[in-house]
């Protein structure tokens, strides 16, 4: 019992950081900027510690910049990597705003992607105008339904959504493995878990093919932008968004104000799952063209970091997603140009998250960046 209470307060504290009650410039801008800078510096220190010489470190950061924003191809890769992170990050952010810690984006991406793939290869002869939206819709609905399971159990029994979504992630891994072996889904002639290829009529068209055959930027980016605007409108301009935020800030007050908390929980989870499902559909229809057992590639977990880093604001999520996309694309170039291990990018990402999650450390490290006497923490 006491342990459960402890988890609850910990989550509450994290949520407070993830969804700030009022715009706090210092927490919103200065801390993330410092976090990135410190992470890059410490990344350099980590390289030094593993016997990488200074010249290579310099070269690898140049490669990081070049590989993420230095050319059309780099920008295309950055945005391609950022799109699913932002979509799934929006879903997670919605949950944060409503006081729900949805760890299940990974599973929702898998379910959404699977549904999109199945629709994507099953219906032959449909025009693209029908087929593509249908496949996307399948992804959205599958993600929403899968997340709604956790929301419903939470609302009906009070079981904690963190545990529920983690467990649903586990189930989704095996479910996808199983589905990919079903004769109707598995690619003919293959015995490993891989689906048939998505038909051209369900593929998200590439945008820059006329510039070069290797530019992977696809029209999923428009879906992402639309989703960002939609979430902004939903959260800050609509009644239901107000109800979401109200129940996030004070569930009891929201209940006394006549809001139906159970329904809101299910709705928020389903909406979050819809965005994660769309992220999964975006991957299989825009990037991979098929599903295989690991196609979610940890995007659902990176999305948690993106939502945290973006302070659960749709625009913040965009910036954070672009940063993570840039780190991924640039990290690849780091490996090519400087021969630095890709794991280093993982270290830098983790350091950024660490410093975001611990603003006190950043304040202690850079006292001059903050107003004197400002409250160090809002507890």
């Amino acid at each position, binding site marked *: 019992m006491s342990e459960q209470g402890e988890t609850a307060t910990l989550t509450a504290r994290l949520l407070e950081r993830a969804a700030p009650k009022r715009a706090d410039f210092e927490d919103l801008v200065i801390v993330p900027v410092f976090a990135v800078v410190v992470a890059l510096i410490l990344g350099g220190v980590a390289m030094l510690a593993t016997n990488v010489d200074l010249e290579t470190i310099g070269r690898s950061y140049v490669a990081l910049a070049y590989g993420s924003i230095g050319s059309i191809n780099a920008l295309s890769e950055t945005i391609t990597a950022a799109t699913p992170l932002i979509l799934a990050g929006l879903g997670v952010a919605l949950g944060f705003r409503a006081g729900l810690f949805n760890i299940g984006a990974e599973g929702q991406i898998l379910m959404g992607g699977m549904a999109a793939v199945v629709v994507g290869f099953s219906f032959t002869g449909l025009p693209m105008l029908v087929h593509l939206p249908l496949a996307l819709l399948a992804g959205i609905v599958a993600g929403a339904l899968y997340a709604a399971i956790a929301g419903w159990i939470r609302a009906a029994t009070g079981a904690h959504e963190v545990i529920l979504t983690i467990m649903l992630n586990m189930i989704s891994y095996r479910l996808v493995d199983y589905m990919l072996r079903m004769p109707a889904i598995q690619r003919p002639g293959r*015995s*490993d878990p891989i689906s048939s290829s998505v038909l051209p009529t369900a593929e998200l068209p590439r945008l820059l093919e006329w510039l070069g055959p290797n530019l992977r930027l696809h029209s999923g980016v428009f879906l992402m932008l639309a989703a960002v605007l939609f979430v902004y409108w939903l959260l800050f301009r609509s009644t239901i968004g107000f109800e979401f935020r109200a129940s996030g800030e004070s569930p009891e007050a929201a209940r006394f104000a006549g809001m139906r908390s159970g329904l809101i929980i299910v709705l928020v989870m389903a909406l979050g799952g819809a965005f994660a499902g769309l992220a999964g559909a975006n991957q299989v229809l825009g990037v991979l063209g098929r599903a295989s057992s690991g*196609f979610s590639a940890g995007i659902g977990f990176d999305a948690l970091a993106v939502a945290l880093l973006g302070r659960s604001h749709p625009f913040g999520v965009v910036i954070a997603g672009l940063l993570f996309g840039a780190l991924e694309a640039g990290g690849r170039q780091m490996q*090519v140009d400087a021969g630095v291990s890709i794991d280093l990018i993982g270290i830098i990402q983790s350091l950024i998250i660490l410093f975001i999650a611990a603003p006190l450390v950043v304040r202690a490290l850079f006292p001059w960046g903050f107003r004197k006497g400002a409250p160090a923490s809002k507890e």
Partner: protein
Amino acid sequence: MKRSLKTWLAATLLATSTLTGFGAAAADFTACEVTDTGGIDDNSFNQTAWKGVQDAQAKLGIKGRYLESQAETDYTANINSLLGQCDLIITVGFLLGDATKAAAEANPNQKFSIVDYAYDPVLPNVAGQVYATDQAAFLAGYLAAGMTKSGSLGVFGGINIPPVTIFMDGFHQGAEYYNKQKGTKVKVLGWDPAKREGLFTNNFDSLDDGRAFAQNLYDEGADIVLPVAGPVGLGSAALANELGVDKLKIIGVDADLYLTDPERKHVYLTSIMKRMDATVMEVIDSAMKGTFKGGVVVGSLSNGGVDLAPLHDMETMVPDELKKELATIRQQIIDGTIKVGN
């Protein structure tokens, strides 16, 4: 702040470009490898292919680079980021088959070579490297059947794909051949060659799975286990190390694990070597000489592309008679008296 960063960037860029400018004369051929998710230091598959590049660096004076894939979504991106920077791009593994094909078709002037994949029809700019691994696995199966005390052998794979199951087929067939010759009833657990079903970890990176699968096979009575899953097998080796070699022995795959895993070298009965280093080097050599052509390079017992590793410390434990039989069978496979595979 902004300006100083810019000048610093420019200076570093300039420095690197002059540096590479000087080096270009000595080595202007670059071979690049894209690994699968096992990583470059997997002690087996990707590492052996990389050894081929390193050998070429030492002997032919080329430059080598590699790029590790962390997830399946990286394959295409990794190949793309090497385009135009490498004279030859070597993609390691069956799972990169689709990505390599797409990149090769989009970039007809870029030379590719892929390990464990043969395209049909042949792509003019891709040299596939495939291996008659079942020939060496047959020998390992025969050896293991001759060495088991419990009468049960175990095998499990990474993913149910042809380059993995060919090990299991050969191993199974070798053990069956031993049974036929000696009238014994050695069982092979974990693979049914007729149904094409068996034990698979469904990944190439979890050492925990390697331990758990070996434990299960051991609990079922197997005293020699063949893990065909790259680094996953290191987990099985750790288990054998704890149980003791008299209770559980491991057969390595791809590289001679006695040499690449020196901390646990005593647990390896032998290794089924897939000499990707030899074929990779061969393809690099042909690309340098201008004799590169699309198609398939096959490694077999006869050309040394696959082989059984030396017994090392187990040398004294294996009876001389068994060794003699192995040498005969080896010869019979090469001259075709014994047919391995279908």
